[in-house]
């Protein structure tokens, strides 16, 4: 939200620079069980984002002093590959990644029955292989699926979507240019069943009314994406005979091009 530019992000027909309508998602594709070593895994393509998530656990928390005798601890690690962004990123976590890891971990924990696994850790590794705005929500959305794939008992699968303000208008699911030159960004994640909010951030400038508009738009989109999560899981488990084969070829319907309403 920091750079200034003369770029026109919405044209005279109300279309955005990638041709989307104000309330249109980018294409989303989710795959389940894409890794062999992990206890659970998922891969998501969301616009230009390519993110893979592995889940390990519940396993004995290490080092020992981190163990909680009454529940599992949830560790999320959001990491960008050095080559995932335009200018090479130095390997290792920066401050942004540490903050994102923290809020993703808290959001996931809200849905997991942590009391069932005292003294253990549930480790969620989110690797951003290519970044194109909205990585935290895309990563979180895939992480829920990976947790389900690992068989971790959850109330529901967390899901999210961001909205923002671009050229003075509230729009859904910002892309890179909109994120760089827009006026606000509001990532949101919810528990779909209850529609409660488990992750929420905001930066930029929004009136009270614009904020409400953004939240409602994101919530609706999140519920749509929740279905993509379930379909992805179903696609894996409805074909048990292929389960042990080339998992990554399990193609989902790509609903992303459709207007989600």
């Amino acid at each position: 939200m920091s750079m200034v530019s003369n770029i026109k992000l919405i044209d005279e027909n109300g279309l955005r620079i990638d041709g989307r309508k104000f309330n249109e998602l980018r294409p989303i594709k989710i795959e389940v069980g894409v890794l062999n070593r992990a206890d659970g895994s998922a891969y998501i393509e969301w616009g230009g984002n390519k993110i893979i998530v592995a889940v390990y656990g519940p396993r004995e928390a290490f080092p020992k002093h981190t163990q909680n005798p009454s529940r599992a601890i949830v560790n999320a690690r959001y990491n960008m590959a050095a080559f995932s962004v335009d200018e090479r990123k130095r390997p290792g976590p920066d401050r942004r990644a540490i903050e994102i890891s923290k809020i993703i971990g808290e959001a996931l924990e809200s849905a997991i029955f942590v009391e069932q696994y005292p003294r253990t850790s549930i480790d969620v590794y989110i690797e951003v292989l290519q970044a194109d705005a909205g990585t935290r929500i895309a990563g979180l959305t895939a992480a829920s699926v990976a947790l389900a794939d690992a068989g971790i008992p959850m109330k529901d699968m967390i899901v999210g979507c961001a909205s923002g303000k671009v050229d003075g208008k509230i729009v859904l699911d910002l892309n890179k240019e909109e994120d760089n030159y827009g006026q606000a960004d509001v990532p949101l994640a919810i528990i779909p069943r209850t529609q409660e909010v488990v992750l929420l951030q905001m930066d930029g400038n929004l009136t009270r009314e614009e904020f409400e508009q953004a939240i409602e738009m994101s919530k609706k989109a999140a519920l749509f994406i929740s279905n993509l999560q379930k379909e992805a899981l179903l696609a894996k488990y409805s074909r048990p005979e292929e389960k042990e084969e080339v998992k990554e070829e399990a193609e989902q319907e790509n609903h992303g091009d459709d207007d989600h309403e």
Partner: protein
Amino acid sequence: MEMMIMSRSSDEIVYGLKRDYLEKISSGGNRIDGRKFDEYREIKITTNFVTRAEGSADVRLGNTRVLVGVKIEQGEPFPDTPNSGILTTNAELIPMASPTFESGPPNEDSIELARVVDRAIRESKMIDLDKLVITPGEKVWVVFIDIHVLDYDGNLIDASTIGAVSALLEAKVPASKVGQEDFQLPINHIPVMVTMAKIGSNIMVDPSLEEEEVATARISVATDENGDLVAMQKGLSGSFTVEEIFKAVDTSIEIGKDFRKRVFGR
């Protein structure tokens, strides 16, 4: 002087009892220290505490105490913003402030604190960074906000934001070092951050440490003098309903107006 070396399990039991008690009284509209849900603890601000810094504020929010210093030094601009000064925010949860804080490089808590405070100041466009250029593309003023937490009794986000805003409001750019006259740091807007915690099904502003320990969710909302939202951060592993979020936003706008006048005199 007794030593409190408790096992984790007894910790857990105490924690459970505390949570139950605070939930119970909150369902009756009460808080452990007698405040109303929308009532802040007393705020005391001493500016110009560190005269060696370009700006500083010693903030006490109840028993929480945070010292914020602002240093303004020359530096190179970022390549993509050659005509703009630089703002950078750092927070240290030094072990002085709490038996649970440890020495060492910033951890996820101090990083989140610094980034949330930074976001409120940056996104409100509080500082006019365009006026902090010495030589375009070559030399600009770098504004360092350093948050030093001295005593931790809850709600570091608000205490630190108040401290940062207060210190910036009094800060002077030491332009005499480059042959110009010193000038007041150019200020456009004044953000106010209001943090709320959820205990049971109740939401209360300015949580104390005891409240933070049993809260399930936390939300911080920063607004500017137009009542616009400029930054927001939901924390902890609990949830809010959308309606609770909207109500929290309204509370923040309301309190912001009062604060801006009462605390910052603007």
